């Protein structure tokens, strides 16, 4: 068993549980600060300290195991500065991000955001890339962001890093990333109804026939 402190009260919980499971073990009904339970949605941001250690740790409640001496608080939402923009009327220019989020220029490279990130993203580096107008780099470095908001709650320059990151990725996706010609061609073919006959044959086929067709299908690697 592990002793953890939640809301100033000490409890004993089985030490193989995640923080989220431990809270439920204690009878908490989680309505906020819970989501996919698999480390992908970023809803269960948690901060904690270990007894006798000055450091403030961060993690996702669904992906962090409890440890003896943990003092836990959940951050169910992170108040964020979120600009509304029409991506179609933006341009991917060096100052595009700065115009929407001028506070990016307040970054002093203290790296606190990077220390806080449960995804081990180089958060400061992508903010810095955004500052110097390198949208592609900001998009690449922020790719694994799940928008849990821990960076923004810790930032002494009050930047909302995760919204800067997603803006960079949207600009990159729309204006900078190379276009896949094959995909455009295939979408056009679908729109022109190239596959409709075959599809309607399949939807009308009996279960028996479908099983036969499935067994006899041509695999791509065989084709090659």
């Amino acid at each position, binding site marked *: 068993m592990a002793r953890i402190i939640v809301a100033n009260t000490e409890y004993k919980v089985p030490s193989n549980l995640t923080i989220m499971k431990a809270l439920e073990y204690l009878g908490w009904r989680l309505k906020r600060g819970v989501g996919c339970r698999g480390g992908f949605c970023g809803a269960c941001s948690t901060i904690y300290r270990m007894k006798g250690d000055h450091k403030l740790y961060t993690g996702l409640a669904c992906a962090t195991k409890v440890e003896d001496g943990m003092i836990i608080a959940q951050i169910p939402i992170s108040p964020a500065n979120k600009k509304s923009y029409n991506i179609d009327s933006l341009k991917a220019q060096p*100052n595009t991000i700065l115009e929407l989020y001028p506070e990016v220029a307040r*970054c*002093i*490279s*203290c790296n606190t955001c*990077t220390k806080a990130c449960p995804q081990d993203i180089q958060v400061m580096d992508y903010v810095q890339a955004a*500052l*110097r107008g390198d949208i592609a780099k900001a998009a690449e470095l922020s790719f694994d962001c799940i928008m849990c908001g821990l960076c923004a709650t810790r930032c*002494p320059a009050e930047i909302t890093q995760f919204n800067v990151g997603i803006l960079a990725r949207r600009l990159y996706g729309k204006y900078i990333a190379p276009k896949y010609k094959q995909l455009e061609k295939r979408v056009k073919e679908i729109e022109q109804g190239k596959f409709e006959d075959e599809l309607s044959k399949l939807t009308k086929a009996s279960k028996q026939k479908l099983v036969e067709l499935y067994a006899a299908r041509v695999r791509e690697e065989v084709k090659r």
Partner: protein
Amino acid sequence: MTEKIAYYPGCTAKSYAKYMDSTARIVMKELGIELVELDRWNCCGTVYGLADDNLYSQLAPIRNMIRTLENGFDEVVTICSMCYNTLARANDLFKSDKEKADRLNAFMYKEPDYEGNVTVLHLLDLLVKRVKFQAVKEKVTNPLKGLKIAPYYGCTLLRPREISIDENIEHPSILSELIFALGGEPVEDPYMTECCGSYLTVKDKHLVADRTNKIVGSMQKRSADIIMVSCPLCQFNLDRRQKEVKALNPAFHKVPIVYFTQLMALAMGVDYKKLGFQDHYVDPVPILKKRGLIREKKKVAAKIAK
């Protein structure tokens, strides 16, 4: 064999001053030195933090020292005067104040400890100390003959004394020596070490226009054709604010403001179309054509054919 040196471009060299960056790379390659851009770097801090009790502002420059070491170098060269000033002064503070150094290292605990063992150089430093102007002279194929060039240092290359790239702060000569090496004619002016107005340009552009009138006006009285700078902010102020100067001083006529790397590239025979002159408010091309330093090859050939 090409010598390699760690290179810190700075944010402005990636946007507004991108031709300062590209021309620096071209000329240094020509001189046998490859500028290796740090694989990770952050803003230098923009302005050196003078508040003695605020170490936050020293984190950005010192972190770039750690990046330099991570890239396997113990020297880092930069082209922007502002970056040079901020990096070099923070590095000096770190070396001279053990207590502050320890506190900075403690805060950056995720990075390896920095021990103050990086040297910060400005590209002009590198040219003077390592490359030598004689070597520059030997690479000149299009000497800037007849071009009257006013060197402009501004503040950040020279002040404070500890980080000055020239021993003589009041009357520096590095840029003049470079101009001689390029075959040009230096026009030294008392205003060459005056401040351009720096970031006040954001708050009060008329104040900076007044500075521009004094500085550029004085240099044009000495019949300077062009002004040579090493700082993107000085370039911006002295170039763009000429727009506002006309209202202050009707007798004023425009003088182009160029980076030393652009003139080096021109003198080394690089096509002028690659130098970024199209980004300048005051176009340097007419005066360079007038002095015969830019020749339109096709037109000349066509004339000969006639």
